[in-house]
């Protein structure tokens, strides 16, 4: 049995709790609140609510941290210093330096760091990775990826928050990046709501070309890809892949997102992987080096927006 602690607040904490209850060989033994609210959702009321500092040594094997980006790095470091393994939403840090320091603390304390939210557990992206690795498209030529959602409503880095998923998957499937150029536009709707858009041309080390679109100008989450090579093409569009559409007398037709119609949710797949990682059944899929590589590309994209020029990625530099 793996003993889990959950750290966070609000809806996200509830969602995580819910997912963990469906995972085998897991005991949720503690909720660590990240805010001062006394209320705990009723489904969690049997679990002890504690402060981080009050956790007894050895009480939990892993803490799952679901807090806003700016709080993540400090909490990961704190958990690692208690020799507790960590799961945390991606991105796990806001800068390359912060990322390195987080990884170093985890390594020094011999704890695993599991990023949560990677596309590597999404079946459509998993399938695409397998196809590409099996040579289905041949030598890669142009890879087009797009990810869009509503604006989060607060200031945030689109390259980190939206770009991370895309870049993590891109690098894991197509290899390292040579250089990147990016453009970004920020404005507001007439209603005052923020709208943000970014586009990147990413030149991979093997010279294939990736076009990555990140949009906080959508009304709902959308994602698509098209991978072309000298032997074929693989394409997917979430807007055209819903297994169920509902038409009622309401004016808007209702659609369930294609990756919500799964027997085991993407989040549950990730959590099961974490358990397998901790019990030695599987090696952790996302390595510290991979985290750092993605961070370097995301930061290079941001730098390119400022300079208007392509930014070349430093090679090596594993932690």
């Amino acid at each position, binding site marked *: 049995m793996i003993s889990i602690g959950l750290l966070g607040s609000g809806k996200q904490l509830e969602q995580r709790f819910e997912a963990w209850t469906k995972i085998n060989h897991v005991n949720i033994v503690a909720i660590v609140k990240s805010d001062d609210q006394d209320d705990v959702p009723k489904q969690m009321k049997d679990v002890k609510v504690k402060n981080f500092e009050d956790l007894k040594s050895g009480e939990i094997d892993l803490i799952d941290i679901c807090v806003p980006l700016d709080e993540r790095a400090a909490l990961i470091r704190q958990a690692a210093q208690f020799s507790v393994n960590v799961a945390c939403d991606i991105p796990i840090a806001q800068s390359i330096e912060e990322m390195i320091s987080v990884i170093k603390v985890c390594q020094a304390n011999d704890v695993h760091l599991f990023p949560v939210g990677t596309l590597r557990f999404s079946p459509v992206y998993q399938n695409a990775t397998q196809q590409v690795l099996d040579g289905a498209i041949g030598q890669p*030529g142009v890879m087009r990826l797009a990810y869009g959602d509503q604006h989060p409503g607060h200031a945030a880095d689109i390259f980190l928050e939206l770009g991370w998923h895309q870049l993590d998957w891109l690098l894991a499937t197509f290899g390292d990046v040579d250089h990147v*150029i990016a453009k970004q536009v920020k404005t507001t*709707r*007439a209603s005052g709501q923020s709208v943000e858009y970014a586009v990147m041309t990413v030149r991979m080390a093997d010279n294939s*070309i990736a076009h990555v679109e990140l949009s906080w*100008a959508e009304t709902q989450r959308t994602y698509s890809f098209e991978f*072309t090579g000298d032997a074929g093409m693989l394409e997917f569009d979430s807007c055209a892949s819903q297994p169920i559409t509902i038409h009622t007398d309401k004016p808007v037709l209702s659609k369930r997102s294609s990756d919500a119609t799964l027997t085991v949710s993407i989040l549950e797949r990730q959590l099961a992987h974490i358990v397998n990682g901790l019990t030695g059944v599987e090696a952790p899929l996302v390595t510290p080096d991979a985290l750092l590589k993605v961070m370097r590309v995301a930061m290079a994209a941001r730098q390119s927006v400022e300079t208007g020029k392509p930014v070349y990625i430093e090679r090596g530099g594993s932690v």
Partner: protein
Amino acid sequence: MKIGVISFAHLHAYAYADVVANHPNAELTAIWDDDATRGQEAAAQFNAHFYQDLDTLLTQDIDAVIVCSENARHKEHVLKAAQQKKHILCEKPIATEVADALEMIQACEDHSVTLQVAYPVRFIPAIRETKDIIQSGEMGEIIAVNATNHGQMPGGWFVEKELSGGGSATDHIVHIMDALRWMFQDEAKSVYAEFDTRFYDIAVEDCGSVLLEMESGMVVSIDPSWSRPNVYPTWGNVTMKLIGTEGTLYVDAFKQHALYYNDKEGKLSEQPWADDMNEQLISDFIDCVKTGRKPSISGVDGLRTLEVVKGAYASNDIKKPVQIEHT
């Protein structure tokens, strides 16, 4: 109105000739082609006279010509036609060099003939409606465009640089660029491009990614790759995702089709049923010549898009953004 066709090197010539031959106000009377067999076959197909000698064709009683020769030969043919006071519809791109385009525009002005560049994308119903929606303000201010003009690799002279001027970038950037200039009345300010040859063993680029900043600040990306596999159900696509402050509009210009699953040939194909863009393009040209009005797509429109293509190649060479020079 009598119209001649100069060369069937570009496949679009057949579509244009077909429209002219069936047009109530026009007649396809004369054809010249440096490939005599191709020219004679086309003359038989469209019931026109084939001329071995271009100068002879140009001294006939014809009002206008459609130039569909290889890109690098547009200049020679347009200059000759202008000299003989024939109005001209020139296949895109207008030319392979900016200086050539300038010379062609000047010659047509000097001889008071119409020079129209064939950008049929402007006549696609979905694109026209998109322009109307944008201009209505419904989408707010458009801040970015993510566009594709993908195709299959055409082969032939398209992959011979001396004749085509370049590969997929030459072939495909201009359609999107022209449509955007027309929709937004905006010009490209700077361009960054990456091109490569990754799909075929050819001497020109077959793929790439182009990032543009427009004068208005709008960010545009264009994928001009010949990346459609052989089994793709059609020749290619024209798509644009327009990101506006009040919403996002996605247009797939050739979406008006039925999908045909063909067991007899073991393939899947799109069966388009939209209004024919070529018919509208040719009708517009005929009307322009007939009424003497200004062409709806001018030589300068052709020049402006060529400048973007040239800027993109320059950027790809130096791997830096390039400011677009407007001559």
